[in-house]
């Protein structure tokens, strides 16, 4: 059975779900950020699989934009984690409730 685009989409769906489980279940905010990177990778696999199916490079161009946004998100998010850790000495999201009245 040849490998079709559906195989790649199912792989991408499984990777996306693993990322969603990480975001929902873990309490360490660094692990949650890594799960978001996994989700963005799943999206990229989808875009490139469709790019190969449709025989044009536009999907790959959008994957480059996704990678650029992921790099920006990682830089700002990790800056927020460091700033929060300096003030509260924790990376547990259950203890991040300073904005809860």
């Amino acid at each position: 059975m040849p490998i079709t685009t559906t195989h790649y989409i199912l792989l991408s769906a499984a990777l996306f779900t693993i990322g969603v489980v990480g975001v929902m279940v873990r309490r360490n905010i660094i692990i949650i950020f890594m799960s978001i990177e996994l989700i963005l990778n799943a999206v990229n696999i989808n875009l490139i699989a469709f790019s190969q199916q449709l025989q044009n490079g536009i999907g790959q161009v959008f994957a480059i934009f996704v990678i650029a946004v992921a790099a920006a998100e990682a830089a700002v998010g990790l800056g927020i984690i460091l700033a929060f850790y300096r003030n509260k000495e924790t990376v547990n999201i259950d203890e991040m409730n300073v904005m809860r009245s």
Partner: protein
Amino acid sequence: MAQAIAFYFIAACILGFAVLVVSTKDTVHSVLFLVLDFLFVAALYVLLGAEFLAAIQILVYAGGIVVLYLFVVMLVNLKRPPEAHSDPHRRTMLGFLLAGAVLVEVGAIAIYGFSQPAMVPVPGAAMPVTGNTAQIGWLLYTSYLIPFEIASMLLLVAMIGAIVLAKREL
């Protein structure tokens, strides 16, 4: 046949390392599994004929972003593991159920697409260049020039924001 074997091996490695990233207790180990996961995703890109994206994936993700994560994990020296304190109101099962619902929904969309007639290839506008990297460069500097410039502005803003956040006082 060789392509099928390569696909199933790479897919098993991607999913296995992703599960390890999410489930490992030690955060440093989790970051190292994330590197392996990104490398296998790059291998999948090569299998899909996107060599330039594979190089970008290794350079930006496995080389840049993961080093950033490793720095933060080392800076945030945890004397007590973050999983020790747990909110009694936390609903872990609900998280698993929601993730399962996402998997069912996305999988149903994929299976539904499989039952539809196959998409016909839509070749883009005729490009004066051949080869994966040259074609992506041609697209980025003609049709997608303005999004490309906006992405560079976004990176500049993110860099300034990260510096402002990480400085102790301005």
